[in-house]
C-alpha cells in the first residue's frame, strides 16, 4: 500500500485538521464527536442541511460545507458510516431553529445510523427531515437488494437543496426539493483499478490488466459486472445506456451532466469522457445546459469515473446557479 499518511488509524483526523486549517474562514471541525460545521453556523431561521457518510470520498461531504450548501458533515471512518452521536451533535450545532434536513446516501449502515440519530434528535426537540439518496442505476432496486446506492446525485442534491435552504425555504419545502432532485437524477460508475483502505492495507478487489469493473460502488465494492477494458466511447455508452433508459431521459430534456472521477483518474480523461457523453446525448436530442467535471465523490485512489445526469427544470437551474461558497464548489461569491 502506497499512501502519503502517518498512521492508518489517524488518517481521517489528520486530514480534517488540514481541512480546518486550510479553510478556517469557511468551516470549523469538532473531533469528538467528529463533524465539520459552517464557521458561521447556526444561521438563525435557516434550514440546516446535515450530511455525512464514510470518509474516503473527499471532497464529499466536508468539501461541501459552507454558504449555499451543507451546514454540517459527519465523516465516518474510511468507507464506514458515521455513528448517531456524531449526527446528533452536528444537528445540535447547526440547527438555526428552522430544522435540520439529513441527507443520507442509501447504504444500510448510513441509513441505520442516521435513522437512530433522527430518533434521538427528535427526542432532543430538533425538527428533523430525512432524504435518502439512491441514484445508482447499477443496482437493480428490488426485493433482491438493499436498494439503489447513493452516489453522484448526492453532490447535485446537496447543492440544489442547499440553495433552497439559503433562499429561506422551510424544512418541508427543502425536503421536497431534495426528494424531487433524487427522483430526477440517475448515476452509474466504473473502475479501472481498485482502491486500498489504509487500515486494511489490501486492495478492495483485484482486476486483470485488461479488465474493468462496471457499475462499481464508491466503497470499493465490486460492481455489477466485470468486463474487458474497452474504449472511452463504449464505457460512456454503457453507463449512459443504463442511465438514460432508467428515468427515462428523453429528446428535448434539459439536463445537468456531471462526469465524476473516482479519485485516481486524471482530469484529461474526465474531460475526454465528458466529450464522449456530450456526443452520446446530442445524438439522442438530450440537451446539456449545465455541467460539472472533476473529482467530487471519490473512492480514495481508485481509477475510474461515474456519470450522473439530472433532468433540469427552471427551479433546479436557478438553485444550481445560486451562489455557493465551499472548499470544493464555489461560484457567485
Amino acid at each position, binding site marked *: 500500500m502506497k499512501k502519503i499518511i502517518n498512521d492508518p488509524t489517524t488518517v481521517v483526523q489528520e486530514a480534517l485538521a488540514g481541512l480546518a486549517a486550510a479553510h478556517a474562514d469557511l468551516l470549523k471541525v469538532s473531533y469528538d464527536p467528529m463533524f465539520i460545521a459552517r464557521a458561521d453556523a447556526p444561521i438563525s431561521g435557516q434550514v440546516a442541511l446535515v450530511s455525512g457518510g464514510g470518509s474516503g470520498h473527499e471532497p464529499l461531504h466536508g468539501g461541501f460545507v459552507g454558504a449555499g450548501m451543507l451546514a454540517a458533515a459527519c465523516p465516518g*471512518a474510511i468507507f464506514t458510516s458515521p455513528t*448517531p452521536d456524531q449526527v446528533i451533535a452536528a444537528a445540535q450545532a447547526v440547527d438555526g431553529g428552522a430544522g435540520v434536513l439529513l441527507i443520507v446516501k442509501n447504504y444500510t449502515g448510513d441509513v441505520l445510523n442516521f435513522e437512530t440519530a433522527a430518533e434521538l434528535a427528535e427526542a432532543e426537540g430538533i425538527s428533523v427531515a430525512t432524504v435518502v439518496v439512491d441514484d445508482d442505476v447499477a443496482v437493480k432496486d428490488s426485493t*433482491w437488494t*438493499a436498494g439503489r446506492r447513493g452516489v453522484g446525485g448526492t453532490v447535485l442534491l446537496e447543492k440544489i437543496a442547499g440553495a433552497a435552504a439559503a433562499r429561506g425555504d422551510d424544512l418541508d419545502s427543502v425536503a421536497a426539493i431534495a426528494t424531487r432532485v433524487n427522483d430526477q437524477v440517475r448515476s452509474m460508475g466504473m473502475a479501472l483499478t481498485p482502491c486500498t483502505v489504509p487500515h486494511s492495507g489490501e486492495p*478492495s478487489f483485484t482486476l486483470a490488466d485488461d479488465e474493468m469493473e462496471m457499475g462499481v460502488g464508491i466503497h470499493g465494492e465490486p460492481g455489477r459486472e466485470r468486463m474487458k477494458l474497452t474504449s472511452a466511447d463504449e464505457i460512456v455508452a454503457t453507463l449512459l445506456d443504463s442511465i438514460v433508459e432508467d428515468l427515462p431521459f428523453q429528446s428535448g430534456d434539459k439536463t445537468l451532466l456531471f462526469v465524476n472521477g473516482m479519485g485516481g483518474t486524471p482530469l484529461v480523461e474526465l474531460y475526454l469522457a465528458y466529450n464522449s457523453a456530450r456526443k452520446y446525448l446530442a445524438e439522442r436530442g438530450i440537451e446539456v445546459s449545465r455541467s460539472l467535471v472533476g473529482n467530487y465523490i471519490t473512492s480514495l485512489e481508485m481509477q475510474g469515473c461515474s456519470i450522473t445526469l439530472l433532468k433540469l427544470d427552471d427551479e433546479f437551474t436557478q438553485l444550481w446557479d445560486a451562489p455557493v461558497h465551499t472548499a470544493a464548489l464555489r461560484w457567485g461569491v
Partner: protein
Amino acid sequence: MTCTADSVVAAIRAVAQVVIEHKAELSHLDREIGDGDHGENLAKGFTAVVAKLDTTSTPTPGAVLKLVATTLISTVGGASGPLFGTAFLRAATSCGDAQTLDADQVVVALKAAVDGVVARGKAEIGDKTMVDALIPAAEAARSAADAGGSIADVLTAAANGAESGAASAIPLRARKGRASYLGERSMGHADPGATSVTYLLQSLAVGAAGTAAAAVES
C-alpha cells in the same frame, strides 16, 4: 445456577477478545462480498466497550448490556453498529433490574435481541445476513431451555444454531446489506455478520461452560 453482573462483564470481555482475534478474518470475509471493514468495525467497538467497562460500575446484567449497547452504537458505525447496538439494547431491556439471570431469562434476552435486529434491519431469514445465524440461535436456545438446560446448555445450543445457520447461508444470494449489490456473485461466500455473531455466541457458550465447571469444583 444463575449468572450475575460480574459474570456478564467477564463474558463480554471474552467476547471482545474473540472479536479482536478474528478481526482480519472478518474483514477478509467482508472484502469478498462487502467493503472489507467488518472486523475493524467490531474490533473498534468492543475495544471501546472494554475501556468503558473498566471505568463504569454496572450493578446488574441489564446495566452491563445497556453499556455495551450504547458504546457499540456510538463507536462502530457501519451497518453492524446499530444492529449489534439494538440487539444489546433489547436484551438489556428484557433483563430489567434483575440482579441475576437464569437460563430462561437468558433465552428471553436472546430472543429480544434477535427481534431487535430484525426490527431494525428488516431482514428475513434467507437474506444472507446475521439474521440467518441469529434466528436459529434463538430457536435452539429456546428448546434447550424447555428441555431444562443450564445457561451453559442454552448458550451452547445457541452457538451451534448460529453456526449451522451461518453455514446454510453460504450458498445463498444476499438480499440485504452491501453484499446484495453483488447479486449472484455473493453466492458461495460466508456472510461476515453471520460469522461474527457465531463467534460471539460461541465465546459466551465457552465462558458459561467454564463458569459452570468452576462452580461445580468449588
